[in-house]
């Protein structure tokens, strides 16, 4: 069909164009990063003498090793606990269906659209009074709280669709509630859990506001917060800033490339449900 073929080609062209626009900022960062440190390279221009050393320089200047460690520690503090708490609550609300579950659910859903800026001010004073300011806990604990609405919402959606018969037969085998949860339901929830884990990882890693407000030392921040500090300090040196930015976003890109299927599915489901 001629019409169909023309449509397909327009589609391909459009898609390629869209991809080019998406990738353009990365290309620009990359090319700029190769110019001599301290210069103001014009637009997109391949340097005569690419300064690959800028990446090493930025790695050193940004303390990438420490940054990676810090972000990893924060992710390890946030994600497993959020998964556990979210699953417990989602299981109770979605499957055990205790009395008052609707109110509990509503309470959590209330927080789904909450902009973080809305509570950042009291959060600062609260974290300060707890003596946690400028520690990684200042990011970890509030983030667990802030992720609860989505985590509970997500896991509830999973448990609501689990068949009753499953629990029924487990009960007949003499399992108590905890065993029912831990032995039967958690293993079955793995796909939902891993998608949620990916989303929480991404949101933690890229969290900016909490990091810049609650932690002054960039070495104790998330990657995103550290990038903010890096810009504050090296924003005057464009090639170095570009190299540093690329380095700082490299870890997520690498992980994204490895798990891209899961990522895309998780993000799609995530936004559909959220």
């Amino acid at each position, binding site marked *: 069909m001629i019409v169909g073929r023309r449509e397909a080609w327009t589609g391909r062209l459009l898609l390629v164009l869209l991809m080019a626009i998406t990738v353009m900022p990365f290309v620009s960062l990359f090319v700029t990063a190769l110019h001599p440190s301290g210069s103001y390279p014009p637009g997109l221009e391949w340097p005569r003498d690419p300064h690959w050393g800028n990446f090493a320089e930025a790695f050193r200047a940004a303390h990438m090793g420490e940054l990676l460690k810090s972000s990893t520690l924060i992710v390890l503090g946030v994600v497993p606990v959020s998964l556990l708490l979210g699953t417990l609550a989602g299981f109770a609300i979605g499957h055990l269906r205790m009395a008052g579950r609707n109110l509990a659910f509503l*309470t959590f859903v209330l927080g789904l659209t909450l902009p973080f800026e809305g509570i950042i001010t009291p959060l600062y004073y609260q974290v300060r009074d707890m003596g946690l300011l400028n520690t990684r806990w200042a990011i970890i604990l509030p983030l667990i709280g802030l992720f609860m609405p989505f985590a509970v919402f997500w896991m509830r959606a999973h448990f609501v669709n689990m068949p009753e018969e499953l629990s029924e037969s487990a009960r007949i085998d003499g399992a108590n509630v905890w065993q029912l949860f831990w032995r039967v339901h958690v293993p079955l929830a793995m796909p939902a859990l891993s998608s949620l884990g990916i989303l929480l990882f991404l949101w933690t890693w890229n969290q900016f506001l909490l990091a810049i407000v609650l932690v002054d030392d960039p070495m104790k921040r998330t990657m995103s917060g550290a990038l903010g500090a890096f810009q504050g300090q090296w924003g005057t040196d464009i090639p170095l800033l570009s190299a540093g930015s690329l380095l700082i976003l490299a870890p997520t890109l690498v992980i994204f490339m490895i798990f891209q299927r899961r990522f895309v599915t998780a993000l799609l489901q995530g936004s559909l449900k959220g």
Partner: protein
Amino acid sequence: MKKRSPAPAAGLRTPSWVGWLFVAPALAVYAVFVLRPIVLTFQYSLYRWDGIGPSTWAGLDNYVKVFTDPDLFDSILNAVKLIVFFSAIPVLLGLAIASTIRRIATSRLALVARTVLFLPQVIPLVAAGIAWSWLLSSNGLVNQVFSHLGLGGVTRAWLGDFSTALPAVGVIGAWVLLGLCTILLLAGLSKIDPAVYEAARMDGAGPLREFFSITVPSLRQEIGVCVTVTVIAALASFDIVFIATQGGPGNSTMVPGLEIYYLAFSERQVGMASALAVVLMVLVLACALPVQWLTKDRSS
């Protein structure tokens, strides 16, 4: 969806307190780090407080100021204007693109595109801000392109010009959200039975009618999701503006999130910051709820 038995088996045999025991830890963290701060924001908003010394009761003065002080109110208006870029462009353009590439949705190219278009969702917004600040600067790529096209006259520092700074910030947001919307809508399209389109073609429907009478109605839920996500992103924008313009030039790109940050932590008008925060939270809810309500009913 599976029909549920009226008396849930597991629920029947498990006392409610056990269920609440499961919920308790999540509720506790949530209450301490989210609900309590929400209540405190309300409380702070009724006081004049510099964050260090003692505070004095201010009643609704802070709210009056939010709506009468041009600087503060402009920040809200700017956020509303950003919706055009963060929301309207990605959703409309996404719809157009998704329906154009519907036929090749399963091709290899489309699969590669799915990954590539997701990149902006994966990287920190801060990085997007840095990259785009550079693209939009006086000697950045955008101006280079315009000059090559013989449009040297329009070149400028896009983020430093009163008339273009806010749209330029909007373009960054549109870039971040376009890929997500396109793919969400494409995923929705793939659920529509191709036979429906075939039938429409048989009836002599053109691409336009096809678009309005099949594509848009079937994608109601996906469109709703896109609109909700992007509107919230616009109203609560912070990272991009913080990096790209810090609210300038003048106050032309000031948004509520950034204004709250400045008020609370550098100007130390904690009460005013909190009043603006309350207004922002209410605004987000007021935008998100109707969209959800309008688009969700079909599925339940």
